[in-house]
């Protein structure tokens, strides 16, 4: 006996015959799909093979104005006057319809954005419908969310969402806005507009009054038109810190409310007394989930010196078992990078890391020829002074440092312009409490990472943003207190 057996997993692709996609998508304004005034459309491609999936309307200032007017009209005439429990029913209906069509949405999310079907199926879509369910429940119970005060809607919310979790981010923003009685103009990211447009179809099916939700597609200019529109009363943005800063300047003095969920460079801290195998799994989830396109990704790893060799050797081994490839294959762990532009950005950081003297390790996975791909990558021998430690890469690239004392690692963890999330791994409860109190970050996970729940607020310190989303804190961003 004793012969080594080669056992590879056969391809297990999720089928795509059940999805319905149009060749061309128009703007969803006032309950109907309308052609853009300019007649311009742009292509949305599948980043795993660079094939065009569909073309999507580009909304200009006039289209955005139309969308805002229809939102304003719906707000004044219908939505703000509707009994709260009726509003709740609509949101429940959206949640249920989304749940019923979860498989279709997962496949489209994966095709349009490149993320593995395992994640869109198990995380993105179920969490999106969970957000609608959760907020549907709040609609007629706002007096319990804000006891002793009266919460009034703000008006028209302009919502600009990123490409990393397209449908989920739409749900994070739409659900609380609707529950609190606001109407919305939503702009999905230009590389991943399809699930938001499919959601518009669900909104039609749910018979939501026309104008309550409007979906306008386009790039930066479209977003700019929303931010600067005088009838928009609130801006909710998730994306880069750079754009976040622009928005803060643009809305200054306008009276518009805003919430911004921006970048991050989370410290993930492994102490010697951690359960090492589970911590290694946590490191993997923290940085390689969604190809590292996660604002709360654990992209700075700190390992206590006694377990450095063990953690790094186990991490390398584990990286070798990650399957990189066809995002629609149920066994894929790491899908395609979302866009060519993002891939170039990641590559330039990896080049920089090597040039600055970091030691690089990449898993030996084979990478498809077509499409945008990046192997899981870790850097050791780097310091706080390396740019790959300081700046958000937004890709599958981890920077690893070592430490000896708790104080040392706390100082380094907080030594960042960001403060969105963090992670701590130890079997000692008292250490968890000390560390989580001292890290300045909005979300800190202990002995786990990247866990989300609609009831749990999410938001950051410093350049990671303003305000929170989720939970009662998230609702408060969509109301004026009387």
């Amino acid at each position, binding site marked *: 006996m004793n012969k080594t*057996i080669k056992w590879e997993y056969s391809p*297990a692709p999720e089928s795509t015959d059940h999805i319905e996609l149009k060749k061309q998508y128009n703007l969803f304004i006032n309950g109907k799909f309308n052609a853009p005034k300019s007649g311009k459309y742009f292509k949305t491609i599948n980043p795993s093979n660079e094939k065009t999936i569909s073309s999507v309307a580009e909304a200009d200032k006039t289209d955005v104005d139309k969308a805002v007017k229809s939102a304003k009209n719906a707000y004044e005439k219908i939505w703000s006057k509707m009994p709260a429990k009726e509003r709740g029913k609509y949101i429940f209906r959206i949640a249920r319809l989304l749940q019923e069509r979860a498989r279709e949405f997962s496949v489209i999310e994966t095709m349009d954005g490149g993320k593995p079907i*395992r994640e869109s199926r198990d995380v993105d879509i179920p969490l999106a419908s969970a957000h609608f369910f959760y907020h549907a429940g709040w609609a007629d119970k706002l007096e319990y969310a804000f006891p002793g005060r009266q919460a009034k809607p703000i008006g028209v919310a302009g919502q600009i969402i990123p490409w990393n979790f397209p449908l989920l981010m739409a749900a994070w923003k739409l659900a609380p806005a609707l529950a609190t009685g606001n109407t919305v103009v939503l702009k999905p990211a230009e590389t991943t507009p399809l699930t938001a447009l499919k959601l518009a179809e669900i909104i039609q099916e749910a018979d939501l009054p026309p104008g309550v939700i409007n979906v306008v597609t386009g790039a930066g200019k479209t977003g700019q038109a929303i931010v600067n529109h005088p009838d928009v009363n609130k801006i909710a943005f998730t994306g880069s810190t750079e754009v976040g800063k622009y928005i803060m300047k643009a809305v200054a003095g306008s009276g518009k409310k805003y919430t911004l969920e921006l970048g991050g460079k989370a410290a993930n801290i492994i102490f010697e007394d951690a359960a090492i195998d589970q911590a290694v799994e946590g490191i993997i989830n923290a940085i390689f989930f969604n190809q590292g396109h996660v604002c709360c990704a654990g992209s700075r790893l700190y390992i206590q010196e006694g377990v450095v060799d063990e953690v790094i050797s186990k991490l390398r081994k584990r990286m070798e078992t990650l399957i990189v490839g066809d995002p629609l294959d149920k066994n894929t762990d790491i899908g395609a990078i979302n866009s060519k532009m993002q891939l170039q950005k990641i590559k330039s950081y990896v080049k920089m890391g090597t040039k600055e003297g970091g030691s690089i390790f990449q898993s030996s996975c084979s990478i498809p020829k077509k499409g945008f791909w990046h192997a899981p990558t870790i850097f050791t021998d780097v310091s706080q002074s390396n740019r790959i430690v300081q700046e958000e890469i937004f890709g599958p690239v981890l920077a690893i440092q070592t430490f000896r004392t708790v104080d040392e690692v706390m100082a380094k963890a907080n030594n960042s312009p960001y403060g969105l999330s963090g992670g701590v791994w130890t079997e000692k409860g008292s250490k968890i409490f000390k560390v989580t109190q001292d890290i300045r970050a909005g979300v800190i996970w202990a*002995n786990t990472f990247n866990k989300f729940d609609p009831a749990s607020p999410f938001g950051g310190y410093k350049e990671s943003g303003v305000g929170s989303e989720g939970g009662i804190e998230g609702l408060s961003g969509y109301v004026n207190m009387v």
Partner: protein
Amino acid sequence: MSTNIITPIDEVGAQERVSRLFSRSIKNESKVQALHLSLSMIDLTTLEGKDSQGKVKQLCYKASHLHDSFPRLPTVAAICIYPTMVSVAKKALGGTGINVASVATAFPSGMADLQAKLDEVKSVVEAGADEVDMVISRGKFLRGEYAYVSDEIAQVKEACGDAHLKVILETGELVTLDNVRLASDLAMDAGADFIKTSTGKVSPAATPPVVLTMLEAIRDYQLKTGKKIGMKPAGGIGTAKQAVQYLVMIKETLGEDWLSPDLFRFGASSLANDVLMQIVKQSTGHYQSKDYFSID
């Protein structure tokens, strides 16, 4: 490796890892290959007070003739029986290449004095057992008498001579994964050739997080010493789906070296027929009734 003597295991994290491993989708060629491999890894087991010589003989025949109407099937790896049946099985299996594994050391409770256990081990080896499945003294382990447990394993190993020693931890009685890990480390250090989850007489038997924890202990032991220790989950594994899931767990935790009956076994009484049904289904495209598969 770690300077810690006790390696802590986070139960929530272990369960999450299991869920992720078990979400692998094994189809077509890889499924057929996995099913054949699973058959070859089975320790076909009967461990009942009412076992008869006749039943053991029938089981031995089945072990090498799993489903003769289907070509090119492997045999199981071993049959696993009580000490009194060893000579019967040895004779029945002559020339098949299938091993005889006997439980010993006052299986399943292990509640006997050491000398009695050693005598039992020697007698089953003399009767022709190729493999000995011993149980650890859980009472002593849970009281923290680790040196006793370790010494006992070492003495049983010596009594085994050339026979392979599988050490049953009875993880259902150890309760925590921290204990499972500690007992695994202890058994490997004391000379186990295989570590095995359960007797099959205690519930829960082989649970996925327990198996994962033991596989990780084996991997760390190899990193430390270079030695490859085998693994045998036993009890509660009755379906082909579970078997394939465990193969995924081995492949991604220990690597393909362990995808061999030399280093991995399933202790099971009813698994073989479910795997056979799946193999036939993969070939013909439809399920047959259970009546088309022999019960022995």
